[in-house]
């Protein structure tokens, strides 16, 4: 359990080997969707309140208010009433996010009455705060009708597997599924497999990259090798932790009969930075794009301002810090520059130039997010080119890289979509040849998934 965070995580063993199997078994006692929703809500309450049960009151309150704001934004007779509903939702949800996630800010500003004695972060507060805004926003924009059944909204707001999937699963995408869904054998199979693969991504690949990163970016022993490989490992660890948790969430959703949109697209360097920004955590990007960018496509100034503002807000959503603010702004600026002229210019050059530019831009963006202070960033940047360092690598860095070399290679191969496509198409051809091949493949899949589960569990215990 993370320090200060109330609730379970998908990767907690008590969840995987306790709550999850019990929930799956109980869910099958009855076929009706209402029953499934009830079990889902009850499980989610246990999931969120593990370690701090009173947090549930906060959940109830926000759902009730979002329900009311939704009605106001949808059915308000006058425009100012509809506006009020939307604004209230933004204010309430963003206040919750700031008060709970960035409480230290109040301590620094001297606002004592808003400062908590202990660090207290209800799990997923960032997600359900944004989900509340997205629901009321969609109602306000008339994309969906306001929900009259508060239980449906409650299922949407508190279901634990919506937590890390998007982060924003739009209500319009799941409202039908909340009302009616079935769980088939295929669902169970796909859901379990995806959940375990996600678990392995987080606990095996994510942790391995993290160890290389820790050794490489240790400011007490910065070397050029450590600076380069450490930052690449940081990108790898972020990628696998985020995609791993998303896979786990998608797997849990599938187990419950839900079908969500994918949150991560394969990384294609041909789209440059804009392509990567669009494909990485794309539901979050789409959400901000819908509200701040898409309506202003005809006006160039407003359009660019919308992109910049979206970048800043996304950065602040990741972390309420100056470095995340700069991180968001940096990527937004690159997107704007690419849209204005850089993309056309890069298209004229050999492809390799575009690839190098994209990789370096992402590399620097990751460094902006990683280093909290400018001094540290500059020290690292100099170390990249051997300035201020006397040695190429440290013993610790060398050992860590060698220790996790195979895993790192596997991780990099997984990140390259072309490799993935080739492997999948080959396996598919192999299985199509005859029934025996298909059987071999399916049994290997089952053995592989079981092995991954045991390995990830062992890694989780020793981590």
């Amino acid at each position, binding site marked *: 359990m993370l320090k200060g965070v109330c609730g379970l995580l998908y990767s907690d063993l008590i969840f995987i*080997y306790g709550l999850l199997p019990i929930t799956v078994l109980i869910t099958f006692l009855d076929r009706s969707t209402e029953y499934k929703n009830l079990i889902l809500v009850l499980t989610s309450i246990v999931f969120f309140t*593990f*370690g701090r049960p009173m947090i549930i009151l906060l959940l109830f309150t926000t759902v009730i208010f979002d329900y009311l704001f939704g009605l106001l934004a949808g059915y308000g007779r006058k425009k100012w009433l509809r506006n009020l509903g939307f604004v209230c939702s933004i204010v309430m949800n963003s206040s919750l996010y700031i008060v709970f996630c960035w409480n230290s800010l109040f301590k620094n500003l001297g606002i004592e009455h808003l400062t908590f004695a202990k660090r207290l972060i209800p799990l997923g507060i960032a997600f359900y705060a944004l989900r509340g805004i997205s629901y009321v926003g969609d109602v306000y924009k008339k994309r969906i009708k306001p929900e009259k059944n508060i239980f449906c909204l409650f299922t949407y707001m508190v279901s634990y597997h919506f937590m890390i999937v998007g982060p924003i699963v739009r209500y319009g995408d799941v409202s039908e599924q909340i009302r009616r869904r079935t769980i088939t054998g295929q669902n169970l199979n796909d859901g379990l497999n995806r959940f375990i693969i996600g678990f392995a991504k987080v606990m095996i690949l994510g942790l391995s990259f993290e160890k290389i990163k820790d050794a490489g970016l240790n400011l007490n022993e910065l070397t050029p090798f450590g600076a380069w490989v450490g930052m690449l490992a940081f990108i790898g660890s972020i990628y696998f932790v985020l995609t791993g948790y998303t896979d786990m969430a998608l797997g849990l959703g599938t187990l419950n009969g839900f079908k969500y949109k994918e949150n991560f697209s394969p990384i294609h360097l041909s789209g440059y930075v804009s392509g990567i920004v669009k494909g990485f955590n794309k539901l979050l990007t789409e959400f901000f794009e819908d509200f701040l960018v898409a309506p202003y496509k005809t006006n160039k100034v407003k359009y660019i301002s919308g992109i910049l503002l979206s970048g800043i807000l996304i950065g602040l959503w990741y972390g309420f810090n100056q470095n995340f603010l700069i991180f968001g702004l940096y990527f937004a600026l690159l997107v704007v520059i690419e849209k204005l002229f850089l993309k056309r210019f890069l298209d004229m050059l050999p492809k390799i130039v575009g690839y190098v530019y994209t990789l370096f831009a992402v590399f620097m963006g990751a460094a902006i997010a990683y280093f909290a202070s400018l001094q540290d960033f500059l020290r690292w940047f100099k170390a990249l080119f051997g300035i201020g360092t006397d040695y190429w690598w440290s013993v610790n860095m060398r050992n860590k890289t060698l220790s996790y070399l*195979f895993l790192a290679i596997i991780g990099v191969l997984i990140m390259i979509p072309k490799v993935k496509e080739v492997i999948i198409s080959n396996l598919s051809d192999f299985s199509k040849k005859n029934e025996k091949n298909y059987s071999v493949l*399916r049994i290997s899949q089952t053995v592989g998934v079981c092995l991954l589960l045991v390995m990830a569990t062992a*890694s989780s215990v020793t981590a």
Partner: protein
Amino acid sequence: MSKKRKRKLNNSQAEVYNGKTDLKNNRHKPDDYDYKNAVYPDNSSLKVPPEGNETASLEGDAVLRKIGKDAVVGEYNFINVAVVFILIMIMGISFALLRNNGEYIENNNKISTETVLNGKFTKKLSKNYMKRLPGKQLLFDANRVFSYAYGLAGYNDEKGFVSVDTGKIIGIKTYDELIMVTVTTTAPPTTTQYTGKTTNTTRKLKGSVFVGPGQLTTTAKTKKTTTKKTTKKTTSATPTTTVFKGTTWSFRGTTTWKTTTVKTSAHTTEPPTIYTPPQATTANTTIGFEDDEQ
């Protein structure tokens, strides 16, 4: 049967009955069809051709093959789900039950309204769960075995300790072994228990301190060994500060490790074994085995 379902069934069956492929062109009235003898499910999109038509029979074969394939896929899905779920259940049950019964709750975690509401109960429950996992050593060993496949170095926790004396990597490989090497039995002198002679000796720590070039390191060299009748330890240390000017990153410097040998004549109980970790002497120095957790 509901009206909607009946109509659906009739539509699909009518299509089969007429041997027509396009549902829109099917003018056969749904009510004329005897749905009681329907073979295919109402939601079936399968198109079964009439007998005697060659192309249609090929289509029929394809349909049968598809049904067969679906059945095989379903079978393997079932096997996969069953095996994985059974594995999860076995691990889950063993994690929950293979230990002292009720230890989660009874041992140090009292269940009451207060502990439940302030979250202490679930917090401790979670802590106890991780603390008392059965077969933890087995999982550690499994992870060590898996780690052979992870990389070239063979060990996850390998330390790159370069010996100052030999210039070679010290053969301390894992966290556990490192602890075993460094833990020394120390008898804490107490005034009530020990009345005999106490000898304070100092020896070098086997795993030395990791410093980089140009970093300061303080070496505490203990010169004196005193023998006293009292139980208080007296060790006079002369700290000297040196700058390491080596050419490679290495572990350098000596940290004193205080051990006390008790020669006693009057104590009745065995002195407890206490691990005294060496103290890092400057801000830049880190003790090797703590490094992994950074």
